[in-house]
């Protein structure tokens, strides 16, 4: 056992003893008051009874928040965890009070109610336990996902139990980060409605999952942020039957969803790069006829450029590529240096990413060759959607680079980019104010602060 586990154990032991002490003394008082009943001193009886009920109530109130913390039962190698809902807190306190009143008065109807309450707890435990057994989850998502665009996810739940159906299952995807709420917030939610938003943690709900079958749902989900969503597992949870106990079963899984930044119509950026629109139009006209290279045919290539001679020689479909005008090659440079002085840096950086993505999208669709240059990663010039997705992928993952953090990956500086391939047109997005002075017509610098 490591030290944390020992500490945990000590804490749990302490709580256990305090609860036991409180409930135990309540029980002793209940017995005392019960025997006092025979003597007929009713004031004393009432006094001890109330005291015992109060102690029981405190015991209940003390132990409920502890209960509401997640108790992981990994000891038994089940990946089950429990957390009490606010209803459970009410129910628990009610059960304890009814139990002590039963002992106090010796009234069998109270005993009966008490037994029913206990039976309800046990039964709901059994049912939810049964509901979560032998389940499998599978999630299918499209290859390319853009932020802020509806994405169709297909989430299927499979019940492998031969006889028993499962009820009311909520399935979520674990992405490593988890929100924890204390009991107070939960009680608040009970009265004021849920405060939280629907998220990746609660994707789909299956009201019924019959035995030996599979239910699949299609959910349209919108990722709000670009980036890499690491899927560490699935979370199947149920509050069935009465919503007293949220029982969670975690299934391990590995996978990642990469969400690209959402390209926007270029017109919205026109103001920031006035030269772009007019200038790009002119660059469309020139179309050189010099052979640049021969390469294998890929889908999307125009049939016109198939070189039949070469095809016959190599027995593969070959296309000719012609040299393009210099103006049709673009280098998009994104400087990821973090400048702490800049207000709203994070927000602006995101806008920069979107701008680069939009440019890449626009330029590619225009038929220009585009490459992305960032200090950490660089692509070659390329055409077509596959190349565009490559750029999107880098953009999806890029994060501002703090100067303090030393990374293993070799980086290149912006000045190096300026020296590279003087013939192409460079659009540089940078937070550095010093670059603004460049007079080169082929270099357009967009300051982050102006975005």
């Amino acid at each position, binding site marked *: 056992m490591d030290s944390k586990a020992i500490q945990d154990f000590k804490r749990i032991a302490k709580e256990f003893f305090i609860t036991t002490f409180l409930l135990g003394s309540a029980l002793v008082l209940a017995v005392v008051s019960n025997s006092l009943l025979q003597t007929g001193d009713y004031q004393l009886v009432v006094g001890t009874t109330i005291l015992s009920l109060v102690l029981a109530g405190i015991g209940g109130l003390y132990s409920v928040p502890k209960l509401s913390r997640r108790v992981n039962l990994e000891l038994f190698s089940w990946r089950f965890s429990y957390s009490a809902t606010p209803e459970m807190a009410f129910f628990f306190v009610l059960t304890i009070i009814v139990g002590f009143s039963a002992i106090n008065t*010796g009234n*069998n*109807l109270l005993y009966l109610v008490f037994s029913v309450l206990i039976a309800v707890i046990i039964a709901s435990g059994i049912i939810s336990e049964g509901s979560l057994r032998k389940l499998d989850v599978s999630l299918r998502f499209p290859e390319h996902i853009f932020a802020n665009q509806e994405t169709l996810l297909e989430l299927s739940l499979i019940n492998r139990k031969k006889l028993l*159906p499962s*009820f009311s299952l*909520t399935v979520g995807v674990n992405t490593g980060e988890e929100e924890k709420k204390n009991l107070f917030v939960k009680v608040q939610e009970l009265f004021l409605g849920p405060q939280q938003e629907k998220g990746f943690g609660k994707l789909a709900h299956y009201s019924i999952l*019959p035995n030996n079958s599979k239910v*699949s749902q299609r*959910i349209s989900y919108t990722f709000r942020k670009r980036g890499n969503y690491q899927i560490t597992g699935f979370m199947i949870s149920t509050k069935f039957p*009465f919503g007293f106990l949220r029982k969670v079963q975690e299934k391990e899984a590995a996978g990642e969803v990469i969400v690209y930044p959402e390209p926007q119509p270029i017109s919205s950026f026109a103001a920031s790069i006035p030269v772009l629109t007019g200038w790009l139009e002119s660059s469309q006209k020139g179309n050189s006829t010099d052979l640049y290279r021969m390469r294998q045919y890929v889908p999307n290539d125009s049939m016109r450029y198939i070189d039949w001679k070469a095809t016959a020689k190599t027995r593969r479909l070959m296309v000719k590529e012609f040299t393009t005008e210099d103006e049709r090659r673009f280098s998009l440079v994104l400087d990821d240096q973090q400048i702490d002085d800049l207000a709203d840096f994070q927000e602006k950086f995101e806008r920069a990413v979107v701008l680069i993505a939009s440019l890449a999208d626009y330029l590619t669709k225009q038929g220009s060759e585009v490459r992305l240059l960032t200090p950490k990663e660089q692509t070659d010039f390329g055409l077509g959607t596959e190349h565009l997705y490559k750029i999107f992928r880098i953009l999806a993952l890029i994060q501002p680079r703090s100067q303090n953090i030393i990374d293993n990956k070799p980086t290149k500086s912006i000045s190096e980019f300026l020296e590279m391939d003087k013939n192409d047109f460079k659009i540089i997005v940078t937070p550095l104010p010093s670059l603004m002075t460049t007079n080169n017509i082929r270099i357009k610098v967009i300051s982050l602060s102006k975005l």
Partner: protein
Amino acid sequence: MIKSNTLEKYFKICSYLLITQGFLTLCLTGNVDFISMVLYSIALILSWYSDKADSKLQIKPQTANWLAISFLPFVYIDFRYISSSYVGPLIHYSLFISIFNLFKVKADRDWVFLYLIAVFEILLAATLTIDITFIIMLSIFLLLILATLEAFEVKRSQGEVYKPKEEKLLNQIGRALPLRRITYLVGVTFAIVLLIGMITAPVFLMIPRLNTNFMARSFGATTVSITGFSDVVELGQVGDIKKSEQVVMNVRLKTDATKLAKLPKWRGVTLSQYNGRSWSEPRREQRKALRPIDGLYKVDEPSKNPFLLEQTFYLEPLSTPVVFVAPRPLTVNNQLPSLYSTTSDTLTTADHSYKQIVYTAYSDISLPPLTELKKDEQPYSQETKDHYLQVPDMDERVAKLAQDVTQGATTRFDKARAIEQYLKKNYSYSLEMKRTGEVDPLVDFLFNTQQGHCEYFASAMVIMLRHIGVAARIVNGFQTGEYNEVNNTFTIRQSEAHSWVEVYFPTTDTWMDFDPTPSAGFSQYTNNIANKLKKYFSAVRMLWLDYVVTYDSERQSYLSTRVRDTVSSYKSSLESYIFNFRRYLLNSYNNFSTGQIPVKNLAIIGILGSLTILTFLTWQFRQLLKGWQLAPGKLFSSWWARQLFLPWLRWRTKNNPQQSAVLFYNEMLVVLEKKGFKKQKHQTPLEFATNTKLSEVAELTNYYNNVRFSNIKLNQQEEKQVRELIKKLAKKKTVNKIPVSNLKRLGLATSAVSLLFLLGATVFYFYNERHMSVSSRLAKNQILSFTNENYRSPRLVEKIIGQVRQQPGNGALDLAEALAPGQPAEVAPKGKLPWDDYFDPASQPTKDELAKIFERPEIALIEKAATYKTFDISELTNLTPQHKIFVNNLDHLTVIDRVDVLLWKAYVQFREGKTKECERTFALVISLGDNLRQDYSVNNVSLGYRVLARGSLAIAKYNLLSDNEDQAKEWFSIMRRSYQRRTRLQYLVGQIHLAGGSDRNLTELFALAVQKDEPALAQQATVAIGQAWLNNPNQVILGLSKQRKLFLMALTEIKKKEIVKTANSCLETSTKMSFFDRWKEFRERYKKRF
């Protein structure tokens, strides 16, 4: 879009039903006024229809809140001026809030609030009723609340996530099915209810109870304010007396009520003072609190000849503290918190206006003999005179009438009877009270109206008796009530309140009750279906009271003992089952080794086996069908399916070249799969063929491609070629590892299991054998210790026998005659034996009955049998074989019955003071027992000990009664020894039979028994040996020659001729005959003998 309509609808229905149920339960208590009822019902219906997104009837949450607050002043007005109680405003307010929440645009918390109101309504109803209908309503409510909570949970969880665009249910093989959500939800609700019920029952029974629950307080029981019964009697009111059918109490009797000579009335209070208008009891305040001793309040001492009646009272919450009980209560148990007894013979307890109380009382309902009562002329004490002869100044006609009526009656009893009968005959019963001008109501009743209710009759009788100097008083209580045969209880209603008269007889200190009311004053009970149903209902209610309401620590411990007993009885029956099974195994092994195969067992094994195979085949077939659906090629994967279907398929595809190609290609694939080549889904036939690197496959694939993808048809030669190629392929040895098919795995597993089973069976058999030899050794030791005791008849027995055994001759003959088959089996009088601990004098047979039994010839014969000097059943020669078998195995019950008659006789003689005769009768019993004890049949020996024990117990009791304690002690010890001896004998016989594993052990046992002069045991050993031999003739053929000497030696020592004769003849014949015949003959003879 997915349709969640059904779920929403289900949730709505459940919620509304729940709310309605809460309301209905409240209505059933009768506390909801008509207007509220109608208004709420209308509101419910309207809100059901308005519960839509865009309904105009819905109100905003704020409006609803303001309405709820602005209603509060009205609650106060309601409380002060309209309902003028707490309940009314509470009901109105909760209904009102419920209505406004119903019309709200409902969020989750509003639903919760509505449910809480419904729960509150139920709690309110609980405080207002204790009716059993409430329990039913509550059960329905619980069911509904469970269903609602489930639906609510599903609905809420659904709200927490994204609404799916599409949802579909697929079964195992991917076929889409409709998703029946509601069916599942309803089903699971019932399952949960069942589960909760199953958990609740044991939890309820097992939660430790710390106290005895004397009071069962319902959730606010309503008091039954008693109208009929009262602790004073007031005469003179005018008008109708209302009769209420409300149940006041239930009484359960321990004794079967139908067997009681006279059903008791339930006494409440007595009244002694009459002031001309009303009756009262001035001494009621002089009460003393009784203290419970050993859990019982002792009220009175029993009379000389008591007849106890155990009654358990289940009193509803009553406005009177009076404890009702049958006349002459002796004890009341301490389920009551307190008990007070007054000098006027009235019992009271604490106030229980809100509680049901349950108590058990014992009353002595025996009465002194009439002759004694009639003789009673003892003068009254001063106290009696003061209280029970008091008469106010009255019209002289009353005294005159009393004199006239009792003319001719001499004794107090006769006088009382005369007045009782006079009133009964000449006056009529009426609940409608009329008055004439007469001031004195009693005089008015006696001489003018001549009709009245029970109070008038009782008052008139008491006053008349007092006028002629007979002490009497009035008793108020209840009539016996309606008998409910379902659970042997009496149900007593308000209308059965009654007054009657008690007359005092000082000699025996008895208050005898008289009832002058004509029979019209007693309730008549109909027995129609409705009433019968009511009775069942009431029985269920009593069960509820018994098992739930009054369940306490005492009952809990009783229940746990019961459970323990049941478990242990199951355990012992399991043990005996295992034991029998072991013997059965052994026997069947023996039978098997002798070639005697039990047909029945074989048939069973055959049926079981074929059933197993059939199940297996069905299962295989199902698997196959399932597989076939998924991939038709799999059809060929099992050999028998290939044999069955392939020719048929070939014939069917004969004219379709493409299909036939698929067929042979599939066939090839199956063959290849067995060789370890599996065609992957992504492989084309050609690719696969190249991968296998088998020329046959390439060739076949070529054929396949040709036929499948063009219209070329194979000619006969080519077809032949294909067949041959496949065959060749099947025979070919390949290098690929062959995976084990599931079928093979199953086969392997089955054989492994059966091997294990065989191994287990062998081990078990040997263990069994070893165990057997161990048990036979044990048996030997037991017999040694048993026979070493060297039992001789005790001195006292010898002495007592000596007195009666005087005649020469064999007593067995008479006994055989007395017990000959065909005699009546049961001659003993019914009831407990007088010498038994639980002797009940009430169930005594009459003298005449007894005398008739004593004179029966078989009793005389038995008496005679005990007087002979010798007694040897084996000496009897002139009996039929059947009769002899009967005598060898005397029926215990018959003999004990006859011995009981003798013991009855001794009792009667003792009561009549004839001690000499009584002792002689005892001696006869002891003599009979001692004679039987020395018999050679274990059955009779054990019977002898039993008779001895029974006799000695009676003698011991007799000695106790005649203050001869020393003798009594000795007889008790004789009884104990006899019982011990008998039990051990039975045990030994069991051991001997258990030891039947090897006859060597048995022979030793036999020799031992003979040596120790225990003929009965020797006999048993012979029987066991014979049975062992019968089971295994090898023993007769081979074993006997080895063991014969020992056996013969033992036989020569035995003194009982019969055994020797039997065994010898067996042996002789067995040596003379051929092996097989010997065995057969032996078997036949032995069967006949034993």
